[in-house]
């Protein structure tokens, strides 16, 4: 209860301080006229906002320099490093490259360039995982449960920077291979979902009639069940079919999620397709006697490119999160493939050691954070793309 009371006191205090701040600013006559006008027209919330900002800065300072909460220090350092690298990346893009790419980077907000940087890093790690990782993902060593840190005095081992898991596999290698498996599988699934969804959606838009009715109603029925729930139900059946063949479960999962996710793609592709189908150039192409495949691939697809690309980013995030959630629940990507969702589940108990060994507790958060970072990055880029294509200013 104490914590609630002190929280309320803080909020009331900030509000009062904001009001006082504004009132004092309005009384004092500043030498610059702009400042005078600024204070005169300041809404109360802006004053409170200033106070809130100051209090937050104070707390950041307090936790960083005085209390030195390890996780907070890491978070701040990580944030600063990422911010600086995103800024450097933005500067690099603005000054190096062709006219086109430079113009693109000039219009880009910092969040989007951060997202782009992260996506590039992840793809590099995913592609070259075998070369970057010190060991293989299935390699088992005799030392199990080595603590992270690499310092023998605290139970670490310099050969295994992040320690080993309960079977003696190097966690750093598994984290790196996780990029390959988790991101790779999610990417594959999204591509498959788009293949199914756009094909059916464009077909429904161009053919119309009973085909459109049939597919639309079928998709409606599939969408009536929450996606994760339906995926879990189908995975139950898939695991029964796969039996003891663990690799097969992963394949089934890819197909199941792709089919479930293609429903959303279908909706968008059909809606976009319907808008394009009524255009005069489609009419002209039909009168020319073009075939269905020409209509879809040469006339509709190029015009539906922009919304589909943005949707691809969003769908990728959803698929990625669904796969991570399934793996976290123990029914997704199967061992011995290293993946982040499973790693979070296996390492999650370590979080209770946060007081004694922060690095150990950080292990599950690293895997979960790796998932979060990529989805945040993709979302930033998609956000910017949508903003750019819609031309929204406010």
């Amino acid at each position: 209860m104490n914590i609630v009371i002190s929280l309320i006191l803080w909020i009331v205090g900030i509000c009062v301080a904001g009001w006082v701040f504004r009132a004092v600013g309005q009384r004092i006559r500043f030498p610059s006229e702009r400042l005078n006008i600024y204070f005169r027209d300041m809404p109360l919330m802006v004053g409170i906002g200033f106070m809130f900002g100051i209090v937050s800065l104070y707390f950041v300072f307090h936790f960083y320099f005085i209390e030195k909460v390890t996780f907070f220090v890491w978070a701040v350092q990580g944030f600063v490093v990422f911010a600086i690298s995103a800024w450097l990346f933005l500067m690099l893009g603005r000054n190096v490259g062709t006219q086109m790419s430079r113009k693109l980077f000039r219009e880009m907000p910092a969040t989007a360039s951060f997202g782009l940087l992260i996506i590039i890093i992840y793809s590099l790690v995913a592609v070259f995982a075998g070369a970057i990782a010190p060991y293989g993902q299935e390699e088992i060593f005799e030392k199990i449960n080595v603590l992270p840190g690499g310092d023998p005095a605290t139970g670490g081992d310099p050969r295994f920077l992040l320690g080993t898991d309960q079977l003696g596999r190097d966690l750093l290698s598994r984290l790196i291979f996780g990029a390959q498996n988790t991101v790779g599988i999610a990417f594959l699934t999204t591509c498959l979902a788009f293949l199914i969804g756009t094909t059916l959606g464009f077909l429904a838009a161009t053919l119309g009639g009973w085909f459109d009715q049939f597919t639309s109603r079928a998709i409606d029925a599939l969408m009536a069940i929450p996606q994760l729930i339906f995926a879990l139900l189908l995975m139950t059946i898939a695991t029964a079919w796969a039996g003891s063949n663990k690799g097969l479960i992963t394949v089934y999962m890819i197909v199941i999620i792709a089919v479930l996710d293609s429903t959303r793609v279908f909706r968008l592709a059909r809606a976009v397709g319907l808008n394009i189908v009524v255009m005069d150039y489609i009419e002209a192409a039909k009168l020319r006697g073009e075939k269905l495949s020409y209509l879809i691939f040469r006339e509709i697809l190029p015009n539906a490119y922009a919304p589909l690309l943005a949707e691809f980013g969003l769908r990728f995030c959803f698929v990625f999160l669904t796969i991570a959630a399934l793996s976290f629940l123990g029914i997704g990507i199967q061992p011995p493939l290293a993946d982040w969702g499973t790693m979070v589940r296996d390492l999650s108990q370590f979080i209770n050691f946060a007081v004694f060994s922060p690095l150990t507790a950080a292990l599950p958060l690293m895997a979960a954070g790796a998932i979060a970072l990529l989805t945040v990055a993709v979302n930033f880029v998609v956000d910017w793309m949508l903003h750019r294509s819609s031309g929204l200013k406010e």
Partner: protein
Amino acid sequence: MKAIGLIILHRLGLGLVTLFVVSVLIFASVNMLPGDFAQAILGQSATPEAVQAIREDLGLNKHPVTRYLDWLGGVLQGDFGVSFAQANFSAFAGADASKGGIGSVAAQLEPRFKNTLFLAFVSAAIAVPLSLILGILAALYRNSVFDRFINVATLSSISSPEFFLAYILILFLGVLNPLLPTLSSIFPDMSFGERLLKTMLPALTLTLVVTAHMMRMTRAAIINLLASPYIEMARLKGINPTRVIVTHALPNALAPIINVIALNLAYLVTGVVVVEVVFVYPGIGQLFVDSVKIRDIPVVQACCLIFAAAYILLNLTADIFSILSNPRLRHPK
């Protein structure tokens, strides 16, 4: 007024049809299992006699359509069948387990369903007011530092997996500063306050996930309206910005906002699964995942149906509310 009643009845009918289709879908997918239930219960090395006995016990030698109708009839009376995990037990004990005894799915589901509802209510009670206030503030101070900060923060929390947010909360509020319990062990005879305390962390996690989305939509819905002439008029009259937004823009933005709230509550239904597993919260989501792992088909079927029903119901509510709040939708072209 008669027209509204008709529209709502029409929507309700559609919802019932959807629910029926969904139940068929669930039943059909479960029947895609290799072999059948009997084999699934007894495993690969079962003797043919035992399999046959169970098959007759469960009525598996009947036609699928008959079985589906039996199952549906049972579900309508609140009988979801017998859980596999306890099926053998009740068969040997000779008790009629399907009538609400120890092995029945309904008996397993009932307390957990209440727990899940409790969790959903607590998170909704925190999330809805919070997201409305934040959304209105963000619309009021759009393109300011506050708006940018909220934008980045909500985008990050939407895109993080639920378990990441959950573990971050556990780390800071449960382990480093032990304020809230990290395991939600809930018993039926708990006081309300204690229950609320144990539910707090999972509820906060769900709040974080849902608030971000609702808040963004509230902001977008209000900002969409700001370009319209009557808002321009209100501004030119010299009304202060808060009033313009709260009394002029908000009522017209209500339809999309209600829609988003209902859709997000529907999202809670799915989000609950992962969060319940993280916090070992004794709700339906936890039961569902456990049953999926041991392939306890009747429980999986029942949970799936309940989740789907809740999802459909909330979507239906969203539909009806948006029709009620927007007269234009009452006259479809």
